[in-house]
């Protein structure tokens, strides 16, 4: 029996449900666990709390990124490099 959800699902690991429900930061922990699950990460228990704290600290950067206005008509390019015509600045 494995308690971990399959990678790519939004199902939360059962082992963390109680912690998430009880803590004052339950919503954040739930979101963290879902993202861990989606990423297919296997985070050892000894790393879990500090990884959560780092992740929580990182949210302000991600939120800013997601809130940034993009008024760009063109699609982004993955391959364009400064060494290519039109690449970089």
């Amino acid at each position: 029996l494995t308690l971990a959800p399959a990678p790519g699902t939004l199902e939360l690991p059962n082992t963390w449900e109680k912690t998430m429900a009880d803590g004052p930061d339950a919503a954040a922990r739930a979101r963290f666990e879902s993202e861990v699950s989606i990423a297919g990460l296997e985070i050892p228990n000894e790393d879990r709390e500090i990884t959560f704290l780092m992740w929580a600290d990182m949210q302000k950067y991600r939120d800013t990124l997601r809130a940034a206005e993009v008024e760009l008509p063109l699609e982004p390019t993955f391959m364009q490099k400064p060494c290519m015509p039109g690449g970089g600045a």
Partner: protein
Amino acid sequence: VSNICDLDLQGVSEAIRTRRVSSAEATAAYLERIERHDGVLMSYLTVTGERAMAQARVMDAELTAGHWRGPLHGVPIALKDLIETAGVRTTGGSRALRDNVPTTNSPIVDKLDAAGAVMLGKTAMHEFAFGRPRANGEFATGRNPWNVERVTAGSSSGSGAAMAAGLCAGSLGSDTGGSIRGPASFCGLVGHKPSYGLVTRRGVLPMCWSLDHVGPMVRSTWDAAVMLQAIAGHDPGDASTSSRAVPSYTEGLEAGVRGVRLGLLRRHYLEWPDLHADVKSASEAAFGELANQGARITDVDAPMLDQAVHIWLPFLSEMFDYHKELVRERGQDYWPSTRHRLYMGAMFSAADMLRAQRLRTVLARQVALLFDGVDALIFPGQAMPAAPFGYQSETEVIASSNRFTAPWNLLGLPACVVPCGFSADGLPVSIQIVGRPFDDATVLRIARAYERACDWNQRRPDPAGWKL
């Protein structure tokens, strides 16, 4: 030659060329100094003494026969330990690759060999170029020769420490978000992140391959120009390298800045509230010196710079992609702080990465518009002088340091830090110069114009302070 190790690369090169000292004597002097001081400074992970002496003797024999390969002939240098060296372990600063001995050289090593450089060894670094500084123990990352209780910054920490302490005549680092320019700034060196595509990344352990750059960390701009010249150029094995001709980086180095148009990114950098007062005052004085020499300085701005650190972060997913198998197999051999950062790299979504790509394009366009009116951009090299070990949290490190350096990795532009003074407590500070794509020569020329007007790069940390 009183103390070869106090010279810059140019001085060492000239002493060898004119046969005031042999390459073997110079190499022996560096090896002796490493033996004497590196127990405290922890700047090398591997010292290749026998190999270095053998290389040096070959270079001396060639010189005796009348063959001089060029300015790196017989000059002892050090390489960051993520550049693969055949037969010499390449660890990436990690226990996970403790016994990794490549069978082939990075083309960078082959080029340096061809130029006649003598490899003293492999320098310490933050684990896989994104770990935290470590003051002690196996895979310690190096102590700052200007104050051994301070970090060197990273991730090319050992290259910075070794270079500043005179434990090599030249060094190479790599830079994904500031890993050349941070340590160069904290250690009082010239650090040059070349244009993306100018120097191959093949045979270099990647952090984020679309942002990684290899470049020199040295005592002067001439030294940087010479080392860059040796490693630049197209590599058929690295599709990201450019096939354009590589110009001479020393030829116009002394041309000065009269009439050169410099854009000062005042709002984003100089007026940033967290900028250390000593960095600010030293930078303003340096910009004043450039103006005195005839540069035309105007304030410029690119609002998207405010987003640059946010744009940079999702690229950490490249880092996770490279490590995902190794960390699964040998996760316990990574330092915990490195594992935690790796996990962050896995947790950016495709939407985050796409958004970052789009915003990067906006940033590139804004900066390109600036270059319509100026020849280069100028601003302080780092937010602060070297901090004590353990001073900053994970995200503070990213936010303050990367603000000054990471945007220029995103854009692949040439960026050079050059010392511009010292803080009140005796730690080096720097300015940074950023140029157009592949205009590394102009960047180095501007850095040289400032450098020759002052003596910051002539100062040396006192070995008497290298004790715990």
